[in-house]
């Protein structure tokens, strides 16, 4: 059961998390927000970007901000599954008897940075499957539970494909989000260089603990989703299947394999977190549109025609969304900011007053409802494409 304390904490902690991350990571708002949303929702993230854009720094910063143990595994072709999961070694006890003793691998941590994950062989990559989905590791028939919260933040380089092993669909599906890490803008580049010239030290501080993060997840899960919104989300997932009854023309033309049911779970979980971050206590269609790109882009398998026509996954998602929009008219006719007479920023306070009145003052403290101004502002800037759309 969510309490007002949970809501208050969620708001405060979100603000702190973004504030602390911003101290070490310049720019990359979309990636930061996406990663934080995935972590709160309990999903793994695949970061794709060229070297040097701050992927590893972001993951390290997250570890510090959430005050969670952090392990980095550099994936290479000769990396073995045991190097990831750990292995049993024979030791002798006091009586001289030999017995197996499990030596945990780097995966026994809370935040795992799987750097250049596509460089390892499929065998090693698959060592992560169980950990990513069930949060357990099985070695020699013994399953061991991983620490909670547990996240895998993997990176891959989109340019250099020599000697890489593309991630199998099963593993791709276990990533809640695939976030594209763009090159920094000129201003961001100047800030990065200025900052790192002074010191390379990372200054982000703890914003919340692992337990608090789990509590935030529980709170976000309580956000209600209207039946129509849920149905639309599932329709969106189904619309990516070329053979489904909801299949869009774009899906029929460009998609070979559509998104799995995990995509449906992911888009709803992520939309709940996004709604709460925005200071709203329900999921909207707009949240779905925003979450559609990071949730779907790695889950849909494009066919030859799409590749030949150089149509990207994001292009196809845009086409699917537009087709659904034409059919069901779910994209808001007027964006939230245009509908309100009051100036931006007054909303949270006004809402809190209403809550206090309606609940006889019981919810007075929700005056600090988690309206993340920066996120709202960003949403406006991004327009229809949303926060996590293509660059």
């Amino acid at each position, binding site marked *: *059961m*969510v*309490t*007002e304390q949970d*809501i208050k904490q969620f708001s405060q902690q979100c603000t702190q998390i973004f504030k602390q991350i911003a101290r070490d990571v310049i720019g990359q708002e979309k990636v930061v927000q996406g990663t934080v949303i995935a972590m709160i929702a309990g999903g793994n993230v695949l970061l794709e970007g060229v070297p040097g854009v701050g992927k590893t720094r972001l993951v390290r910063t997250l570890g510090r901000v959430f005050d969670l143990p952090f392990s980095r595994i550099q994936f290479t072709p000769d990396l073995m599954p045991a190097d990831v999961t750990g292995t049993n070694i024979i030791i002798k006890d006091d009586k001289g008897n030999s017995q197996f003793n499990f030596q945990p691998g780097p995966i026994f941590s809370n935040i795992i940075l799987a750097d250049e994950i596509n460089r390892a062989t499929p065998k090693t990559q698959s060592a992560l499957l169980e950990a990513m989905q069930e949060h357990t590791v099985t070695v020699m028939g013994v399953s061991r539970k991983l620490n909670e919260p547990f996240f895998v933040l993997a990176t891959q380089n989109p340019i250099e494909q020599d000697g890489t092993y593309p991630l199998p669909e099963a593993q791709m599906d276990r990533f809640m989000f695939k976030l594209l890490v763009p090159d920094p803008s000129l201003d961001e580049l100047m800030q990065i260089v200025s900052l790192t010239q002074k010191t390379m030290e990372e200054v982000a501080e703890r914003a919340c603990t692992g337990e608090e993060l789990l509590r935030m997840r529980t709170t976000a899960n*309580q*956000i*209600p*989703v*209207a*039946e*129509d*919104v849920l149905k639309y989300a599932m329709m969106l997932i189904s619309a990516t299947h070329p053979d489904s009854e909801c299949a869009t023309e774009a899906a029929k033309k460009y998609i070979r394999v559509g998104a799995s049911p995990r995509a449906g779970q992911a888009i709803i979980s992520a939309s709940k977190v996004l709604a709460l971050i925005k*200071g*709203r*206590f*329900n*999921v*909207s*269609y*707009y*949240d779905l549109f925003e979450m559609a790109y990071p949730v779907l882009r790695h889950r849909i398998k494009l066919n030859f025609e799409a590749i030949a026509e150089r149509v990207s996954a994001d292009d196809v998602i845009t086409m699917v969304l537009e087709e659904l929009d034409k059919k069901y*008219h779910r994209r*808001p*006719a*007027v*964006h*939230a*900011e*245009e*509908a*309100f*007479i*009051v100036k931006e920023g007054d*909303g949270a306070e*006004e*809402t*809190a*007053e*209403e*809550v*206090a*009145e*309606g*609940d006889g003052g*019981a*919810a007075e403290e*929700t005056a600090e*409802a988690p309206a993340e101004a920066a996120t709202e502002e960003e949403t406006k800037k991004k327009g229809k494409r949303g926060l996590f759309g293509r660059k």
Partner: protein
Amino acid sequence: MKQTNDVMKKFRRRILRGAILKSALAALIIASGVLLVTALASWIFGFKEGIWLAIGLFALSFAGAALLFFFFKYRPTAKDVASKIDAIGLEERLITMMELEGDDSYIARLQRADAKAALAKADHTLIKVAASVALCAVVGVSALFGVGALTVDSLYVAGVIPSAVEAAEYAAAEHDFNVSYTVAQKGGKIYYRGEDGIMVDEEYNKLEVTGKIVVHEGEDAPSVIAVPDPGYAFAGWSDGLYDPIREDKGITSSLSVRATFVETVSLNDLLDDGDGNGDHQDSDSNSEPDPDAPPNQDNGNAPSDETPSSPNQDASGSHSDSNKQVNDGNTYYGDEYGGAYDSAMDRLGSGSDIPGDLQGGVSDYMDSIGKGGSGDGSGGGN
């Protein structure tokens, strides 16, 4: 909840107006269809009172269809109202609030409060009272057809146009017209004319025109020729034509014309009675005047002392005597040859020949009646 309903009232009113507008437009399509069918049926079957029936049915169907559309299609449910309000930027707050109705959990109360706060700040004018362009276009087209049919029916009722059935019957019917060529008085006959002259039957009898000739609309009447009896000359047709050969083409109405023949006087008689005082009177010269006679023809009964009224009458009035008129048998040359007559008489009196053009006319006439002629003026006399 009451507070929410109060706040939603202004939104609901606008949504309701929109629904009424759409219902009315949809009903107008149905009513226009009814008007089109009824008005067209009235016009087609020539039911003059049908225009009032059409107008009445239009009104009834409009009212009925509007109610049906409103209650069964466009009347917004509470969920519809919530969805429409959400669409102006409330981000599904209201629809979620509706689903959480009765839920007393903290998050549900929080959501309700958030939704109410957002609703209170929303601009209700963003809900447009409008219909889609497609609906308006269909309404426009159907109304145009309906009004068009009503206009056609009105024109029929006003007697400007016939009913469709009448028009169809008229169009389908074959239109025959009677053509009659008759002789006004005695003095000649009218024969059918072929390419080689007067038509004859197997026994070489000339085919005379008797009774009425039936001609289909647009077709040509048979060619006829008016042939005077000996001692008579063709004076013209009652419709003002002077050519004894008639070829009435493209008949579009009944035609009835009479040929007029006048008695002629031989040149010998004229020479014998050169004073031109008109003692050679025809027995019918005092009969009733023929109304179809040529304007310069006095039918032989004009008084000799009457002041001349036509160009071929001389000052003494002697020319008004029909015996002194000159006809070549084909054409009445009274006007044309008024002067020529005197000239010819003078020449004949002085022993000279008749001029060549007059001789030619007399010769043609003789040919046409099959008697031949020398054209010397003596052959055509009686």
